C-alpha cells in the first residue's frame, strides 16, 4: 500500500511510464507537482522561458524518439500558452502529454485568479483530454493519456489536475501497468488483395510517402518495398528523409514548393499508392486535378483519413510498415524499365535547381554549405517560411527522424525550441535550426533555455528583415503591395544572442565566411550564425494557392 499525495502519485506514475525529462514552467497551481518532481531523482526538468517553448521542446524530444514528450504548465495563461504547441502536435501526429495545474475544484467556475477552462479550450487542439476529479483517478488517467498519445495515429493529450487533487492524500496498491500503444489490427486481407491486384496491373505505379512512414520501422519497410518492386516515390513535406536523398527511386517533394518532376509524375502515373499521408492541400494543389489519370490506393493508420478528401479505389486502415510487409508477398515484381526511364528523365529535366548554391551568403548556398559540414547524424529543424521551403528542397535528408518541421500547422517559432528538445533528447547530438528573423523572434526567449542547458543547437539565421513568404505572396498575388510584412527597424541578432550567452557571428564576404561557419559549427553547445539574405528572393517553383500542381510558376531572374 502506497500513501502519497496526488502530486507525488502523478510523478511516480510518470516515472513508471519511463519519463526521463519534462519541459515546463512552474506557477501557483502546479507547485505541488513541481515540489514532488523536485524530490524525484529520475526525471530531469528543462525550464523553458515560455510555455509554448516548453511545448515545442517536448515536441522536439518526441519527434526524434517516437516516445511521448511531456510538458508541465500552470493554470490560466500557462495552460493557454501550450495550446499552439498542442495544436501543432495534433496536425503533425506527434505524441505529447501535457499536464496542467488547475484552480481547486471548489473554485472552478468562479473566475478565480488564473482560472481558465483549459479542458474546454484544448478539445479541438488535442487527441483527447482529461480533467482529473480525484487522486484515485490518476493511475487510470495517466496510463490512458500515455496510451492514447502513442496508439494508432499519435497525438497530444492534455491532463488538467486541480490543485486540491494534487495535495489530497491517496492510498494505492502499487502502480498500474504503464500505458503503451495498443496493437493495430492486422490489415484487411481482401483490401490487401485488391491493392496488390491494382499494383500488379500497373504500368506506371508511384508511391506518395508522408509523415506516417517516418518511423525507422516504417521507413525500412518502405525502402524494402520500393527496392523489391522497383516503384519510385515522391514525398510530402513530412515524408522527407524516409527514403535517402539521392536514392535512384526517390523523386523528391511534391506540392506547392516541391520539384516539378514530382508533380508531373503524379500526373503521369497510372496507380498512386499513398502511404501515411493525409493529402493535405499544400501537397495536392487543386484536388480535382490531383493524379487525374491514376487509380488510388490509400494506406493510413487513421480510418478517417481514407476517403476524407479523395475516395480511393482501395483504402486500407493500417500501420504503414504492417501494410507494406503484408503487401510484399502479394505483389509480383515486374519489368517497369520504360516507366523508370521516364522517371529518370523527368528528374533530369525537371528536378530542382538551386540558385547560387555555391555562394555561402545566398539563401540556398548557406543550406548546402551547412549540409557539407554536418553529418547525417545531425537533426535538422526549421521554422516556418522561405527558409523552411528552401531547406525542404535543398537539404539532403537521409534518414527518418532527422527532419523536424511544423508541417500541418505551419507554426513560426517552432524551430528553436524543437531543436533544443532534439539536442537534449540525443544527449549532446547536434541539432541545426534553420530559421528566419520573423520566426526566431516568435520564441527567441528560448535562447536562454539553450544557454542554460548547453543544448548543442546551431541556429542558422537567414535574416531578410521581414516576413519573406508573406512578401512573396503579396508581390505575386496582390500586385506587389507589401503591407505590414517588412520590418522598418533592424534587430541586431548577434548582439541579442550574445546577450543570452550564445556565441554568435554574422557571415560576411570580407571575413572568410566558410572558415567562420566551420569554426562555429565545431563549437560545443549552442550558437547563432547569421546570413543576410534579400526579401526579394523568392522560393520557386511554386504552385499559386488554389491552383493545380501542374500550374507551377518559376521565378523571373532578378
Amino acid at each position, binding site marked *: 500500500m502506497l500513501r502519497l499525495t496526488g502530486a507525488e502519485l502523478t510523478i511516480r506514475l510518470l516515472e513508471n511510464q519511463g519519463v526521463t525529462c519534462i519541459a515546463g514552467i512552474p506557477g501557483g497551481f502546479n507547485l505541488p507537482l513541481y515540489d514532488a518532481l523536485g524530490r524525484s531523482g529520475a526525471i530531469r526538468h528543462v525550464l523553458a522561458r515560455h510555455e509554448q517553448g516548453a511545448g515545442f521542446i517536448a515536441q522536439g524530444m518526441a519527434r526524434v524518439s517516437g516516445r511521448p514528450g511531456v510538458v508541465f504548465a500552470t493554470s490560466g495563461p500557462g495552460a493557454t500558452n501550450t495550446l499552439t504547441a498542442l495544436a501543432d502536435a495534433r496536425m503533425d501526429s506527434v505524441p505529447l502529454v501535457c499536464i496542467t495545474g488547475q484552480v481547486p475544484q471548489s473554485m472552478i467556475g468562479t473566475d478565480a485568479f488564473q482560472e481558465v477552462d483549459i*479542458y*474546454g479550450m484544448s478539445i*479541438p487542439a488535442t487527441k*483527447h483530454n482529461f*480533467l482529473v476529479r480525484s487522486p484515485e483517478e490518476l493511475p487510470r488517467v495517466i496510463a490512458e493519456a500515455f496510451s492514447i498519445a502513442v496508439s494508432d495515429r499519435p497525438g497530444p493529450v492534455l491532463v488538467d489536475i486541480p490543485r486540491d487533487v494534487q495535495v489530497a492524500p491517496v492510498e494505492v496498491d502499487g502502480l498500474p501497468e504503464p500505458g503503451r500503444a495498443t496493437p493495430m489490427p492486422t490489415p484487411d486481407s481482401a483490401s490487401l488483395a485488391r491493392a496488390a491486384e491494382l499494383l500488379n496491373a500497373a504500368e506506371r505505379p508511384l508511391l506518395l510517402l508522408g509523415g506516417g512512414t517516418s518511423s525507422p520501422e516504417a521507413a525500412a519497410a518502405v525502402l524494402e518495398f520500393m527496392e523489391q518492386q522497383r516503384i519510385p516515390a515522391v514525398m510530402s513535406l513530412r515524408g522527407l528523409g524516409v527514403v535517402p536523398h539521392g536514392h535512384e527511386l526517390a523523386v523528391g517533394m511534391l506540392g506547392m514548393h516541391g520539384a516539378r518532376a514530382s508533380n508531373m509524375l503524379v500526373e503521369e502515373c497510372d496507380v498512386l499508392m499513398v502511404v501515411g499521408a493525409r493529402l493535405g492541400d499544400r501537397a495536392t494543389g487543386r484536388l480535382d486535378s490531383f493524379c487525374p489519370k491514376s487509380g488510388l490506393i490509400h494506406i493510413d493508420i487513421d480510418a*478517417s483519413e481514407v476517403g*476524407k478528401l479523395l475516395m480511393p479505389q482501395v483504402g486500407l486502415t493500417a500501420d504503414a510498415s504492417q501494410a507494406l510487409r503484408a503487401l510484399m508477398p502479394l505483389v509480383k515484381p515486374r519489368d517497369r524499365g520504360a516507366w523508370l526511364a521516364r522517371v529518370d528523365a523527368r528528374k533530369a529535366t525537371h528536378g530542382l535547381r538551386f540558385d547560387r548554391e555555391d555562394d555561402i551568403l545566398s539563401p540556398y548556398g548557406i543550406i548546402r554549405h551547412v549540409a557539407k559540414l554536418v553529418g547525417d547524424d545531425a537533426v535538422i529543424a526549421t521554422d516556418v517560411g522561405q527558409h523552411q521551403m528552401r531547406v525542404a528542397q535543398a537539404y539532403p535528408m537521409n534518414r527518418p527522424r532527422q527532419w523536424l518541421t511544423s508541417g500541418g500547422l505551419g507554426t513560426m517559432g517552432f524551430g528553436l525550441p524543437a531543436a533544443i528538445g532534439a539536442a537534449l533528447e540525443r544527449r549532446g547530438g547536434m541539432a541545426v535550426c534553420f530559421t528566419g528573423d520573423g520566426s526566431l523572434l516568435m520564441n527567441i526567449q528560448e535562447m536562454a533555455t539553450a544557454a542554460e542547458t548547453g543544448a548543442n543547437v546551431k541556429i542558422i539565421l537567414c535574416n531578410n528583415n521581414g516576413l519573406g513568404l508573406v512578401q512573396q505572396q503579396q508581390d505575386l498575388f496582390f500586385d506587389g503591395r507589401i503591407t505590414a510584412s517588412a520590418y522598418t527597424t533592424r534587430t541586431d541578432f548577434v548582439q541579442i544572442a550574445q546577450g543570452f550567452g550564445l556565441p554568435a557571428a554574422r557571415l560576411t564576404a570580407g571575413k572568410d565566411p566558410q572558415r567562420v561557419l566551420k569554426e562555429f559549427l565545431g563549437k560545443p553547445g549552442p550558437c547563432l550564425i547569421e546570413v543576410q539574405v534579400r526579401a526579394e528572393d523568392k522560393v520557386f517553383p511554386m504552385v499559386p494557392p488554389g491552383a493545380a500542381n501542374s500550374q507551377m510558376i518559376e521565378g523571373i531572374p532578378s
Partner: protein
Amino acid sequence: MSSSIKSALTMLRLSVNNHPGVMSHICGLFAGRAYNLEGILVTPEDDGATCRMWLVVKDDGRMEQIVKQVSKLHDVLDVHVGQAEPTVFNRLAGCLEC
C-alpha cells in the same frame, strides 16, 4: 417538412462515457468540421456509467466521414447509424413542455 429534407436526415445512436466533458467533445467535433447537427437527445444508461445519445444529422454526402470521426472520439464506445424520423424530436418536445 418536404420529402427531400426527410430523406437527408440520419439518426446516429451513440453509447458514450458519462462525464461532464462528453457533450463538448461531440458538439465541438460537429462545429469544428462543419457537420450539420439538427438535434441531440441524451439519457444516462447502465447505472449512469455511460449515456445513450441520439444525434439527428443532415446527410450532405459526408455521413461515412462523420461516422469515422465520431468513432475516433475516445469517449464514444459505439456508433449505430439509422434512419431518422424527421418529427421525432418535435413530438418528444411536446411531452417535455414545462
